[in-house]
C-alpha cells in the first residue's frame, strides 16, 4: 500500500471540534483502493465519527490484519499509531496492546477474509474476552487482493464474477457474535453514512467490544448482478431494525426517553444511545429475541441493519481480570520488582 500524502492545505472556514481540529485533521493518506470501493465510504464515516466525538488523534490506535480492508487504517487519522499486522491476527495483537494500555481507544479494521476465515478463532475469542475496542468488519463477500475468490461470508447462490455460484452457507459475523456473547452488535452498509456514524459513536462509547459488520461492496469483484453483496442488492434487501441516536456524555439528557418504541442504553462512559425500533417490539437488549428475529428476517432474504444489540453490564477484559486502573505499560518499575530482600526470603520456600 504505497502511501500518498494528501496536500496539507486547509480551508480556513472549516468547522472545528472541541479540540479545535477540523475534519481534515482526521484524514490519513490517499486511499489506493479501487474507485467506488465501499471501504472508502466507511473510512469517511470513521473520519466523521472521530471528528465529531473529538477524539485526540494520538490517543487512537488503529489496528488491522491483511486484506483490502486492512489497508484502510492508513487512510484515516494520520496522527494516530497504526499497526497493519498479519492476516487474521489483528484481534490477538490488539488484545495484547489493550492489555498493555487500557487508556487508549482502539479500532480494529478487518474484513471477511481476515475475520471469518483465517482469523475467525481469534475474533471469537476476542469477543469472548470482551476486549474494549471497535471491531469493524468491512464485509464484501470476496477476496479482493487475490482477485475475486469467495469468502466465508458469501451467501448461498451468490455468483462470482465468472458466474460460479457459492454453495456453502455463509458465516454471519452478527449471528456468530451474538451466539458467543458479543456485548455490542451492529450491522450497517457502507453506502449509508447517516446510519453508520451514530452506530460508530455508540461503538466507541461501549464498555467492551463493539462488533460492527458493514456490508461494503467490492466494485471490482463483487458488484455485479448475481452478487448478494452488491450496492444494488444491499439497497434492495436492507431492512432496518433500529435507528440510533447517540447522546454524548456531556449533553444534558432531557426527560421523555421512554416514549413508545424507544429504548435507551446508558453507555459505560455516561453517554446514552437511543434506539428507535422500527419493527414493533424489537428489543435491542434481549439477546435471545434479537437472535430469533434476525434468523427469521434473514432467512426471508432481508439484510437487517442497525445497532442490533447492546449490553453494558458485562465486564471487559481488564475489569474481568481485576487489573489496576493505570496502564500496565506505565507502572513504575519499583512497583513491579519485589526487590532483593523479598527474593532472599521467598527462597526459603525452596529449601
Amino acid at each position, binding site marked *: 500500500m504505497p502511501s500518498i500524502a494528501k496536500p496539507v492545505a486547509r480551508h480556513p472556514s472549516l468547522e472545528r471540534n472541541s479540540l479545535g481540529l477540523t475534519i481534515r485533521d482526521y484524514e490519513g493518506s490517499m486511499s489506493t483502493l479501487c474507485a467506488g470501493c465501499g471501504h472508502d465510504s466507511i473510512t469517511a464515516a470513521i473520519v466523521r465519527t472521530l471528528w465529531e466525538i473529538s477524539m485526540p488523534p494520538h490517543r487512537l490506535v488503529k489496528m488491522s490484519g491483511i486484506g483490502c480492508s486492512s489497508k484502510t487504517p492508513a487512510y484515516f487519522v494520520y496522527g494516530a499509531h497504526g499497526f497493519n499486522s498479519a492476516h487474521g491476527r489483528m484481534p490477538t*495483537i490488539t*488484545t495484547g496492546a489493550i492489555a498493555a494500555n487500557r487508556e487508549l481507544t482502539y479500532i480494529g479494521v478487518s474484513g471477511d477474509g481476515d475475520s471469518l476465515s483465517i482469523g475467525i478463532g*481469534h475474533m471469537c475469542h476476542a469477543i469472548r474476552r470482551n476486549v474494549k475496542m471497535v471491531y469493524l468488519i468491512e464485509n464484501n463477500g470476496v477476496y479482493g487482493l487475490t482477485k475475486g475468490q469467495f469468502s466465508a461470508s458469501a451467501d448461498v447462490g451468490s455468483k462470482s464474477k465468472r458466474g460460479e455460484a457459492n454453495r456453502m452457507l455463509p458465516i454471519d459475523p452478527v449471528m456468530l457474535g451474538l451466539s458467543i456473547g458479543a456485548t455490542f452488535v451492529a450491522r450497517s452498509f457502507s453506502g449509508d453514512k447517516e446510519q453508520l456514524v451514530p452506530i460508530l459513536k455508540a461503538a466507541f462509547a461501549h464498555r467492551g467490544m463493539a462488533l460492527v459488520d458493514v456490508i461494503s461492496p467490492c466494485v471490482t469483484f463483487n458488484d455485479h448482478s448475481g452478487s448478494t453483496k452488491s450496492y444494488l442488492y444491499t439497497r434492495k434487501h436492507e431492512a432496518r431494525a433500529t435507528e440510533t441516536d447517540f447522546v454524548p456524555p456531556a449533553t444534558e439528557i432531557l426527560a421523555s426517553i421512554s416514549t413508545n418504541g424507544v429504548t435507551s442504553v446508558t453507555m459505560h462512559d455516561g453517554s446514552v444511545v437511543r434506539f428507535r425500533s422500527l419493527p414493533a417490539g424489537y428489543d435491542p437488549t434481549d439477546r435471545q429475541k434479537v437472535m430469533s428475529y434476525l434468523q427469521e428476517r434473514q432467512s426471508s432474504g432481508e439484510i437487517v441493519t442497525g445497532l442490533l444489540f447492546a449490553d453494558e453490564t458485562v465486564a471487559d477484559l481488564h475489569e474481568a481480570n481485576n487489573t489496576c486502573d493505570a496502564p500496565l505499560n506505565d507502572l513504575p518499575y519499583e512497583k513491579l520488582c519485589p526487590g532483593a530482600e523479598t527474593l532472599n526470603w521467598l527462597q526459603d520456600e525452596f529449601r
Partner: protein
Amino acid sequence: MRESTHSGVNDFAVKLANVNGTGSASANGLLMQAIFRMGIPVSGKNLFPSNIQGLPTWYEIRVNGAGYTARALDYDLMVAMNAQTYARDIKEVRSGGHVLYDSSWPLDKSLYREDVEFLPVPFARMCNERFREPRERTLMKNIAYAGTLVAILDIDMPIVEELLTERFAGKVALRESNRQALRIGYDYAKEHFSCPLPFHLRRMDANHDKILIDGNTATALGCVYAGATVAAWYPITPATSVMDAFKEFCEKYRRDPQTGRNNYLIIQAEDELAAIGMVIGASWNGARAFTSTAGPGVSLMNELLGLAYYSEIPAVLIDVQRVGPSTGMPTRTQQGDILECAYASHGDTKHILLIPANPAECFDFAVKSFDLAERFQTPVMMLSDLDIGMNDWVVPRLQWDDAYRPDRGRVLSEEDLKDLPKFYRYANGDENHVAARTVPGVHPNGAYVTRGSGHNKFGEYTETPSEYQEVVDRLEAKHKAAANFVPAPIVASSGAQWGVITIGGCDAAVREAVDLLHERGIVLDYMRIRGFPFAEAVETFMRDHELCFVVEQNRDAQLHSLLVLETGIPKDRLRPVLVYGGFPLSARKVIEGILTHSEIDERTGRLMPVVRDLEETTCPR
C-alpha cells in the same frame, strides 16, 4: 573410570519405579528435599509419561558428595513399586545393588537375580491394615516406602518429620497419617534389614547457600523481577508450569496491597498464534510481555515472530523444549528447537537466543531476555528444556541487585517527541543499528503505521529494491551486534588440543564426562555456549582447538549446524555427539559418543581422531 567404582557414602543413585497418578511424586519430592537439607549435593530426574493416571513413571535420585549431579550413571537401588515394569526395572540395577519391592504379592521367580539383594516389604498389606480409605491406602504406600528409604539410606528422620510438619501445616489429620505411614516403612526396615545399606547418606554442609528449584519456577521469578506485566500463553507440556508459577508469584507480589488490584495481566490465549500476537501487541504498546511454550507452540508462532523481527518489536518467548517432531514425546527432554528458533519464520530472519543450563541461569537469562528484546527491538527466545524446566536442581541462591533498572532500549519520550520535526521509525540507527521507536499515545509526533509489509527506513510502504534492502541489511547488522550482548560462553581451557562444546542442560553431564576422561588421561577443553548470535569467543575457542566435539540432545546436530553456518569454522573440525532419546543426559552417553569419534593412541595415550572420518575431508588449516 569412576563409573566402575563402588558406590558408597554420599555417592549412589536410587531409581523409583511407580505408577503415575498414585501420589508418588509427593513421596519422591520429600526424599529429595530431605537429602538436600542434609547438605548433600543431590539431583532428581522425573521420567514421566504423557498421561494422567496408570502408566509407568520413574524418578531418579542421584546423590554425589563431589557435586556431580547429572543423570546417574547406574542404579544402586531400585524401588520397584510398579509390577508392570518389574522385569525391566530389576534388570537395570547394577550388579551388587539392591531392589526394594512390595512383597504383599509374591515376586515372579523368573525376576530374581543372583547378583542383587532383594529387600521385600509388604507395603500394600501394611497400609491396608492401617488405613481405611482406598485413596489413602494408595497414597500412604508411597510415604511408607519413603520411610523404608529413611531407614536403609540413613536419611535424617527429624528432617523428614520437619518437612511433613511444614507440608501439612494446619492439616493435622493428614500429617498424622503421613507420619504413621512413614513409621510403618521405617520400623519394618529397621526390624528386617541391616540398616543402613553399604551406600547411604552422611550429613554435609554443601547446601547452606543453595536452593532446590526447578527451571520453570526460576524462569517465572525472573519474569516477575524483570518487570513483565503482560503474559499470554497456551497450555503445553513442559512449559505450563512457567505460567502457573508466574501467576502464583504475581498473586503474591504484584497485587496492590491498598487496592487489591493486579499490576499484571495473564491471558490464556486460544492458541499459540494468539499468545505470541498478544505478546507482540503488548510489547509494541510499551509493556514488558512474554509467552512460554514448547516446540509445537514455536512452530505456530513462526508467522508472527517474522512480523516482530521485521517490524522490530520486542517479544520474549520462553521455549521449554521437549521431544519433537510433531507432538513427539511431550514429557521427554530434547534440544530440538535450536535451528527452528534461530531462524524462525519465512524470509530472511535471525533471532537472539539465550540458552540457560540450570534454574539459576533461567532466572538470570529471563531478566536478560527482556533487556535484550527491548535493546534490540526484536524477539528474544530463551531455550530451556524439560530437564531444566521441570526437574528440581540444587543451585546457588538466586541473587538480585536492587540497582538493576530495565533496559528499555531506544524509546522516545513525550519530551523527545515534543520538538521533533518529523519522526522516522527506522532511520538513524545507533551503534548497534537500532533505531528509536515510539509508543502509541505518548505524543502526536510519534505516530506512524507499523507494518509487516515492505517498508523503507521512514516506515513507509515500499516495493523499491534499494529501500527494502537498506532496512533488511540494517536488521542483519543489528543481529550481529547482539553477539556482544548475549551471555558469553563458559570456557574451561587448559590449552588442550581438543575441545568439547555443549549447550544448555547438557552442561552437568558433559563436565562430568570431561572429568572422567581426564582421569583416564584424556584432556579436553570445555565450552558451553549460552547465546546466539555467537560471541566472538565461540569462534576463538573453535579456532584454538584442532577438533571439537559438539554434544547436544537432538538427531540432526543442530548446534553443530548453526556453528558451521554462522562461523568460519570448517565442518570437519566439529564432531557431533548426539543423544536424543528423550531422557536427561548422563556422562556415560557423552563418553560413549566421544569415544566413537576417536581412539586412544597406544603409544602416547592421547585421544586421536578416528582416521576413517578424516580421510573423507580435507582440513584447510
